[in-house]
């Protein structure tokens, strides 16, 4: 083998000019392939690290209330934070993601804005992120520190462009009209506490508040949380895994409201359970419950169902059409609430709801549940707890509704359309990682790679025609030489292999040089500074420079692929050379 290698290497250097020309072509193709792949991956990295991680977090938990994706609120925030801590113990930071569209009025000028909450000096913000902030915003007046200044009335930070559009200066008062978390139209006076020039054109649109300020303006209560973004150390490795783990930890328990039911002069400890009113749950309830009397049975009224068992009805004297009230204790701040219910049906005793229990349609149940989060839990003791093996159990609602994980952006958008369509009353909880939330970025990278790959393969097709042609010429030139080596005992397979090794070495050396050239080109190109201005393509730059992210795996793949293709292409001419008989080859003369 060693002598074959020596012969191949000698042959390669013997025809230096031809080898250099062919090698240059292969090197050029390799360099383009590596460069384009590194650029596509760089775009993807920039989009993920500089944009997606800010607008979607590494892992996100959303809470859609009332089927409106803009209405993000969960009323037992401490519990969610505890689950996050348990499931993702290494989480660096949990950011509250708040952003609402608003109309702002400055000095005689009005413009649309997005009110965004931030806490740049909050817990978990490390030096690296502080550096990122410093690079992203050049402050003209004040700084983000002013946003937390309690002596200023609703401090707000604006970009230079937005300040110009609203004709406001540092310290000016502007007004803003927005819709709060409850859907009410509100107005607020804001004080311009900082003006900055953002490095990214997209940062010109939002106006920034301290998250505490925007929470107050939008009407979030002390125990409420909006959509949450989790920032972790190694999103590439852990984002999906943590999202899966968090999703498993967010399985909702059964929703129960334990309270005192008052009817006429009687008061009796009772549990309210949620009867879901989607068609599957209604069918489940129909098969499990035998209604013996009811006010009406049309579909509209079924969605207003309030059902008690015949035994409970007999004990309390309730019948369909009667109104009762249930007072219950809230979880927070010693609150109490009362819910009024109109009984619509009596079910036969023995249907799994034998006891002091009222099945309440999801609309009325969740209104009461979310208005005052009850102290009672399914795990605790109460007047009634359903048998989990009973058929009706599947029709009962949880404290929230956890939707399956979406695998792509498209799936996620489909899910949100479904949420809006189905009119679920429970808060819909969705967990996603940045790789699903922004799977279109990965698709973009894939598309760029595919386009480059196809183009370079076309280039290689032309190059490989050159390889075949060169080999044919070489074989022709070396016919007598082949005859000589065959005559002194060289085997056919060795003749063939010598040509294959020669081509393989040429391709390998060229591919390695091509990779080195690609790295040199990346270094050179990333030194160039581009002034993108307001061009959205500026978002693909890092500090005004192109960003390349070559990966070892991709480079090894390309090199192996190129060498492989070259060797396969060389195989057929090499085999033909090997098939020459020694006598015929020695007789060859040109």
């Amino acid at each position: 083998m060693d002598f074959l290698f020596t012969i191949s290497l000698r042959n390669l250097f013997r025809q230096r000019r031809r080898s250099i020309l062919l090698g240059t072509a292969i090197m050029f193709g390799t360099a383009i392939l590596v460069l384009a792949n590194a650029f596509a991956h760089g775009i993807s990295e920039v989009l993920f690290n500089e944009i997606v991680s800010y607008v979607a977090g590494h892992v996100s938990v959303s809470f859609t209330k009332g089927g409106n994706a803009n209405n993000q609120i969960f009323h037992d925030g401490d519990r969610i934070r505890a689950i996050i801590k348990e499931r993702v113990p290494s989480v660096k930071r949990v950011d509250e993601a708040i952003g609402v569209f608003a109309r702002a009025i400055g000095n005689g000028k009005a413009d649309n804005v997005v009110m965004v909450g931030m806490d740049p000096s909050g817990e978990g913000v490390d030096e690296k992120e502080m550096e990122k902030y410093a690079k992203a915003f050049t402050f003209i007046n004040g700084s983000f520190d002013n946003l937390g200044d309690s002596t200023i009335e609703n401090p707000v930070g604006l970009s230079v462009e937005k300040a110009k559009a609203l004709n406001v200066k540092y310290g000016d008062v502007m007004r803003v009209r927005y819709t709060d978390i409850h859907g009410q139209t509100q107005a607020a006076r804001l004080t311009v506490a900082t003006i900055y020039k953002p490095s990214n054109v997209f940062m010109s649109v939002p106006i920034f508040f301290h998250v505490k300020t925007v929470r107050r303006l939008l009407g979030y209560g002390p125990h409420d949380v909006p959509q949450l973004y989790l920032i972790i150390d190694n999103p590439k490795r852990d984002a999906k895994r943590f999202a899966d783990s968090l999703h498993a930890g967010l399985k909702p328990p059964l929703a129960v409201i334990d309270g005192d039911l008052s009817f006429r002069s009687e008061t009796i400890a009772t549990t309210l359970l949620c009867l879901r009113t989607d068609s599957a749950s209604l069918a489940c309830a129909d098969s499990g419950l035998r209604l013996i009397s009811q006010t009406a049975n049309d579909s509209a009224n079924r969605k207003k169902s309030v059902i008690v068992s015949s035994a409970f009805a007999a004990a309390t004297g309730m019948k369909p059409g009667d109104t009762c009230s249930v007072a219950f204790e809230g979880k927070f701040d010693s609150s109490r609430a009362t819910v009024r219910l109109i009984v619509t049906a009596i079910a036969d005793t023995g249907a799994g709801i034998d006891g002091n229990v009222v099945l309440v349609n999801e609309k009325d149940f969740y209104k009461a549940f979310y208005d005052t989060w009850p102290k009672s839990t399914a795990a605790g003791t109460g007047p009634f707890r359903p048998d989990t093996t009973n058929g009706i159990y599947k029709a009962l609602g949880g404290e929230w509704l956890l939707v399956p994980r979406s695998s792509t952006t498209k799936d996620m958008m489909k899910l949100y359309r479904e949420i809006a369509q189905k009119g679920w009353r429970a808060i819909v909880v969705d967990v996603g990682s940045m790789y699903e939330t922004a799977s279109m970025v990965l698709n973009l990278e894939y598309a760029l790679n595919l386009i480059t790959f196809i183009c370079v393969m076309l280039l290689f097709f032309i190059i490989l025609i050159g390889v075949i042609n060169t080999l044919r010429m070489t074989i022709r030139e070396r016919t007598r030489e082949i005859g000589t080596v065959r005559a002194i005992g060289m085997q056919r397979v060795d003749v063939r292999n010598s040509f294959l090794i020669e081509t393989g070495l040429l391709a390998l050396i060229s591919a390695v040089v091509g990779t080195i050239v690609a790295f040199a080109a990346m270094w050179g190109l990333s030194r160039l500074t581009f002034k993108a201005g307001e061009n959205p393509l500026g978002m693909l730059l890092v500090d005004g420079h192109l960003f390349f992210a070559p990966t070892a795996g991709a480079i090894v793949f390309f090199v192996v692929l190129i060498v492989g293709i070259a060797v396969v292409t060389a195989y057929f001419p090499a085999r033909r050379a090997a098939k020459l008989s020694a006598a015929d080859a020695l007789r060859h003369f040109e």
Partner: protein
Amino acid sequence: MIRIFGSILLAATVTFGAPSIDSLLKGLDDLYKQVSDIKAVVTLTQQKANQGAKKLEMMYYRRDSDQSFLIVITGPEAEKGNGYLRVGDNFWMYRKNTRTFQHINRDESIGGSDAHGDDFEGRLLTEMYEPARDDKGNELITEEMLGKIPVYRFEVKAKVNDVDYPKKVYWVRKDKTVMLKETSYSASGTLMQTAYFLTFTEIKKRLVPVKQLFVDEFEKGNKTIVEISGISIDKLDDQIFTKAYLENLSK
């Protein structure tokens, strides 16, 4: 924002002696209650500051028995054929260009105007608002003149969260329960909108306001005029509140 619902069936038959705010609200609710189906032509003329006027014309069908309504935009040309259909809890937007129905929320804008889907709902004032009181617990109600008309001016505050404005002030005629003016405030007390009920017509012994002016007090220069004509209270066919009917109307 624009309570078109209220404008269509705000009628006047009740007189009060010494009214409480609750009784006035209940009186308005009684009058708001739709006694039949309704069909009307609604024109919204929207004037934005430093911009020209935008006129939106639509056919409006409504049936309260199953909380249904249908809106088909008939002008301008760019919006013509688009529509909105609500049946029970489902609310769809129809786009003529793509011939598609899309589920939307009740707070979605109608034809890009200030009117929202929930403005067409029939919610009771007494469910949404309660009397505002002073420090001594007295209801904030006074008698005054609105121009030459004696009115009750009273203040209400939201008792539920899902209302457009947390505070409102109403001017209601003393001799009959007709709302003449309404101001809406944010929680911070900022005056956000003033509504004037300008012209009324009598339909089956009910006074129906057919011209209203909504002034945006937040962004000066914005105003919307709502005009209603061609009102019919004949029973509407069931097939009107269907996707197929909306599609046919849009052709």
